[in-house]
C-alpha cells in the first residue's frame, strides 16, 4: 500500500525522517507555558516580599527595633507596632481555642458517627459557612452581634469582677467591639477549613485498625481514642496550624468588630486592634512614615503567615507520607 499521503501525527511537519526525535514546536511551547505558570507562583511570592519591604524600608530605618514597642501614635510620629502583633496573636488564639474542638468534633461526627446518607446535609452546612464573605460577617458582627454580645459581656464582667485570673481577663466591656468578639467571628470563619482538613486526615485511618479496636469490645469513643486519634494527631495539628494562619490573615471582619484601639490589655472584652485590621482601616489616610509603617506591618504579617503555613503544610505532608510508608 502507498503510504506517501498518510500523515503521521507524531512527526513534525516537513521532516523527512519518520523516526526523528525532535519535539514539535507546539509541544515545546506548551510545556514552557505550563512551567512558566508554575513558576509564576514563586515569582509572585518573591515579588510581594521585595516590593512591600521596599515600601516599608523607611519605617524599618527610622524606628529600627522600636517597631516592636507598644508605642503607636501617628500624630507624634511614633510607630511601635507591638499592640497589633499582640492583637493578632490574641484574636487568633481565641479563634483557635474555640474552633478546634468544634471542628474536630464535627469531623468525627461525619466520619464515625453519622451514616453516609445523613452526612451530606452536614457537609452542606459547613460549605455554606465557608461561603459567607468576610465583609458580611463584619457587617452582621458590628451591627447585630456585637451589641448583643455586649449585654452578655456586661453580665460576665460584673460577675467576675475582682476574681483572680477571670477578673482581668473578662472585665467590663465598652461596646461589643473587642478582641473577644473578633475572636468569635474568626472562629466561625476558620471552622470550615479546619473541619474539612481534619475530616480528610481522619478518613485515612485504615478501617482494619478501627475493627481491631471494636473486636476487643471497645465502645465507639474508646475506638476513636485508641485507634483513630493516634493516627490522625499529626494531620489534625496541621489543620490547627492552618486555622491559625487563616485567623491571623483575616482582615475585613476583624477590622469592623475589633474596636480599633491600639492597646495591649488583658481585658478580652475591651476594644483592641490587630495587624490586618489597622492596615485596612488606616491605610487610606496614611502618608510618609505612617504609610511605610503600615507596609511594614504588612511585611511582618506576610512573614508570620508564610512561616505558619509552611509549618502547617509540612506537618500535614509528613504525616501523610508516614502513613503511605507504614
Amino acid at each position, binding site marked *: 500500500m502507498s503510504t506517501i499521503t498518510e500523515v503521521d501525527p507524531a512527526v513534525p511537519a516537513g521532516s523527512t525522517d519518520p523516526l526523528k526525535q525532535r519535539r514539535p514546536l507546539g509541544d515545546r511551547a506548551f510545556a514552557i507555558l505550563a512551567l512558566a505558570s508554575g513558576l509564576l507562583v514563586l515569582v509572585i511570592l518573591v515579588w510581594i516580599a521585595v516590593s512591600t519591604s521596599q515600601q516599608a524600608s523607611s519605617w524599618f530605618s527610622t524606628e529600627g527595633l522600636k517597631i516592636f514597642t507598644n508605642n503607636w501614635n501617628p500624630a507624634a510620629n511614633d510607630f511601635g507596632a507591638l499592640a497589633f502583633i499582640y492583637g493578632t496573636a490574641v484574636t487568633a488564639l481565641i479563634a483557635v481555642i474555640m474552633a478546634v474542638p468544634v471542628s474536630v468534633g464535627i469531623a468525627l461526627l461525619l466520619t464515625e458517627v453519622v451514616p453516609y446518607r445523613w452526612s451530606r446535609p452536614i457537609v452542606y452546612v459547613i460549605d455554606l459557612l465557608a461561603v459567607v464573605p468576610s465583609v458580611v460577617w463584619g457587617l452582621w458582627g458590628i451591627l447585630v452581634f456585637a451589641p448583643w454580645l455586649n449585654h452578655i459581656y456586661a453580665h460576665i464582667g460584673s460577675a467576675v469582677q475582682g476574681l483572680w485570673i477571670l477578673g482581668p481577663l473578662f472585665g467590663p466591656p465598652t461596646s461589643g467591639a473587642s478582641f473577644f468578639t473578633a475572636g468569635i467571628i474568626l472562629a466561625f470563619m476558620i471552622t470550615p477549613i479546619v473541619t474539612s482538613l481534619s475530616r480528610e486526615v481522619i478518613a485515612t485511618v485504615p478501617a482494619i485498625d478501627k475493627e481491631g*479496636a471494636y473486636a*476487643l469490645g471497645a*465502645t465507639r469513643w474508646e475506638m476513636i481514642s485508641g485507634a483513630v486519634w493516634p493516627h490522625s494527631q499529626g494531620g489534625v495539628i496541621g489543620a490547627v496550624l492552618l486555622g491559625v494562619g487563616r485567623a491571623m490573615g483575616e482582615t475585613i471582619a476583624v477590622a469592623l468588630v475589633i474596636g480599633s484601639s491600639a492597646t495591649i490589655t488583658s481585658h478580652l472584652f475591651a476594644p483592641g486592634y490587630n495587624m490586618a485590621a489597622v492596615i485596612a482601616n488606616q491605610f487610606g489616610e496614611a502618608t510618609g512614615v505612617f504609610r511605610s509603617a503600615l507596609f511594614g506591618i504588612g511585611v511582618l504579617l506576610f512573614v508570620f503567615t508564610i512561616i505558619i503555613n509552611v509549618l502547617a503544610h509540612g506537618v500535614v505532608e509528613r504525616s501523610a507520607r508516614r502513613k503511605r510508608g507504614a
Partner: protein
Amino acid sequence: MEQSEQNTVPGPDAIPESATRPAQVQMPEPAALREPERVAATGAPIFDLQGVSIFYGSFRAVTNVSLTIYEHEITAFIGPSGCGKTTVLRTLNRMNDLVPGSHVEGNVSYRGESLYSKSVSPISVRRRIGMVFQKPNPFPKSIYDNVAYGPRINGIHNKGKLDEIVERSLRQAALWDEVKNRLKNSGLGLSGGQAQRLCIARTLAVEPDVVLMDEPASALDPIATGAIEDLMKEIKDRYTIVVVTHNMQQATRVSDRTAFYSVLVNPESDTRTGTLVEYAPTDRLFGDPQDERTKAYVTGRMG
C-alpha cells in the same frame, strides 16, 4: 420447588427461590449436619446456629447455616472465595453490625443465650468473643500499650496488674521472650509474624472465652505461619478457636472439626449466596467426604 429431595443438601444448581428474598420456607435437614452430635465432643456446645441467613440490605449473602461449635476445640471454616465463611465468622462476634444494612435471620446462640436479642450489647459480646484479623493490625502505640488497651478499657488501671496481664498475654502468644526488653517500642515496628502474635496477645489480654481467627496466617511467610499454628494448638485447651482458612493443609494440621462452605449461584439475578455444605470432624471430612462438592474441593484443589 423440589420438595421430594432426599436427605442431602440441594445440588449446586437448585437455587431455592428464597435465595433472593427473605425465606419463610424451611430447608430440608441435610444428613451431613447431624454427624457432629453422634461423635463425642471434647466440651460443651458453645455456639449453636440454627437456620442462619445473613443479609446485606436485601441481598442474601449466606443462607441456611446450621451447626454447633464445641468448647476447647479448633473448628475450621473452609471453602472457595465468596462462600460466606468469613461472613459467618463475623456473625459470631457481631462484627457484621459495623456494615450498614446488615442483618441476621435465624438463631445464633452463645452458651444458650441468643446473640442477637435486643438486650444484648455487642460490646459485651466482643469482650468475650475476640477476633484476630487477616492482616495484622497493631495500634500505633507501644507494644505494652497495645496489649494493655483491652484491660484498660475494661477498667483495669493498676500498673502492677497491667504488667502482669501484659506479660501473661505475651507469653501465651509466644512473643514474650522476643519483646520483653522493648515493650516501649512501637507495635508498628514488628515483623509480620510478630505483629500477628502481638494482635493475638492483645486479644488474649481481655481473657475471652472464644478466639475467632480470620485467615490469621495468610499474610505471613511459612515459618511465621507455623508459629501461629503451634500457638493455636497450645492455647486451645484454655479457649475455643474458630478459624477461617483457605489453606486446607492448615485445616488438617490444626483443626478438630471442619465446616465446608460453598457458593450457590442464582442464575436469575446473577448473585452468589454462600451456604454450609458439610460439617464433620476433620479426619472424616477430608478422609471420607459425604457431599460431592466437598469431595471436589478437598481432592481437586490443593490449597
